[in-house]
């Protein structure tokens, strides 16, 4: 079985930049794929072009930082992994930082890098880096950004977002 896995792995070596272990792992076993029992904001995201759908829930700490985030989604490995990594990395950030993180992440997903990103976000971005491989697959960029669109909508108190 692991031999077979390797032969699959060999053939798709080039794809490892997109489907890094961490993505396959979070795609298969997301840690934050759950509706929060208590939450302060929620929003849906919808990519009509491919049928991906996600809902994001957020709970804030008294200081206004995100205490917990969860999601439910249907979609590909990349969108699930992206939602899961998002739920992990936004914790501890306030709304403004979370939005900045989205902007940086979007830049990274589109171009592969984010040279002008705020140094304060570096650790979080580092964690999201495995997703930067999508920039070579323009039609998959939306998979990675859709959960973030939903998060942004939740933070803005909008009920629905679309990844255009």
């Amino acid at each position, binding site marked *: 079985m692991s031999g077979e896995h390797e032969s699959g792995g060999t053939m798709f070596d080039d794809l490892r930049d997109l489907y890094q272990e961490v993505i396959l792992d979070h795609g298969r076993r997301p840690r934050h794929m759950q509706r929060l029992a208590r939450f302060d904001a929620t929003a849906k995201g919808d990519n009509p072009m491919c049928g991906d759908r996600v809902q994001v829930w957020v709970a804030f700490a008294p200081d206004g930082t995100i205490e917990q985030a969860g999601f439910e989604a249907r979609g590909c490995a990349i969108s699930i992994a992206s939602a899961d990594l998002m739920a992990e990395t936004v914790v501890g950030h306030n709304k403004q930082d979370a939005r900045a993180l989205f902007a940086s992440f979007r830049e990274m997903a589109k171009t592969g890098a984010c040279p002008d990103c705020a140094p304060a976000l570096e650790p979080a971005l580092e964690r999201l880096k495995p997703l930067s491989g999508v920039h070579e697959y323009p039609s*998959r960029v939306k998979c990675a950004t859709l959960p973030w669109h939903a998060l942004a909508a939740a933070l803005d108190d909008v009920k629905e977002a679309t990844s255009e």
Partner: protein
Amino acid sequence: MNDVMAATGFDVARIREDFPILRQTVRGKKLVFLDSAASAQKPRPVIDAMVQAMETQYANVHRGLHWMSERTTEAYEAARDAVAGLLNARERAEIVFTGSVTGSLNLMAHSYGRGVLKPGQAVLISAMEHHSNIVPWQMLRDERGIELRVCPISDAGELDMAAFEALLADGKVGLVSITHMSNVLGTYTPAERIVALAHAHGAKVLFDGAQAVVHRKVDVQALGCDFYAFTGHKLYGPTGIGVLWGRRELLEAMPPFMGGGDMISSVTYERSTWAQVPHKFEAGTPPILEGIGLRAAVDYVQAIGYPAIAAHEAALTEHALARMSAIEGVHVIGRAQDRGGVVSFTLDRAHPHDVATLLDRQGIAVRAGHHCAEPLMHRLGLESTARASFGIYTTTEEIDVLADTLTRVREFFA
């Protein structure tokens, strides 16, 4: 590959030489294009016909009294003859050019739906329609109170003919608008039976032949239907052109859809009168270059011949079904008896989008998604599938590459 093909001298290698794009590499790999059902590639004669028009013989059509316009009109109107021949229409005037099959279906929903059908009547579609054969009728329903009925399908992906007849029983169905071949399941619908039943209950029949006309000879007189629609770009022709065939007397009874140049007989502010069919439905400068390209495509397909095409694609489809069914974790969606060269599938533990991306990395182009058929996806309990679809240039080897690569994809996500 089989007797018919041997008899017809079908030679896929020679055909492939007519399609320059097939020599391309993608991500360093040989292109394996299995997305023809979305849009087919264009053979040399189609490209050449369009180039030749633009380089040597082009002007606007119909009203020009000068040489370039006369020649261009001839070339464009020759497309009408070619399509009339393709469908075995009784008359060339029964061929209406639109922008796409979506344009043809919307023309029907407006001109027939709003102009001929009456509130209280119904339109009957099936559970395996493309959005283009759902949404226009939905808009008609919501605007005009014309009921929309949906004929169920079996789990194998075949039309439930008992239900079909039952849905016609009250005589309210004025129009059956149904796919002639599903773009997701590959199912050919039983056209003659549909027509017989519909006519017996006083309904006219329109086929969405976007997929069907690509793989098999369509003879509208033999089918006995009333309208038939297809799209140029799936039949190896250019984008920007679609076809609606209709019986002359039915077309004549329909009001025009769009207004403008070329579709009028005379215009005053008080009242305008309409040109004869088909021009009544062709407002504005028509898709001239596209007509010229489509004509070349039709001639190309006719020269190869539908018997050979159908045999080739049947062999490919059989091979694909056999190879893919043998892969653990692969589920072929749709098991109709009568089917064309489209195979939808899912793979356990892998989302179709991820499957498509991994295949693409190997140069293999398949489609993944809901294929503009969301209600069918719901019916199947799915959100999306991957789909491999075949054309005249598809080879057995390409299907083997797909199957071999799918095995690896399965392992990648194991």
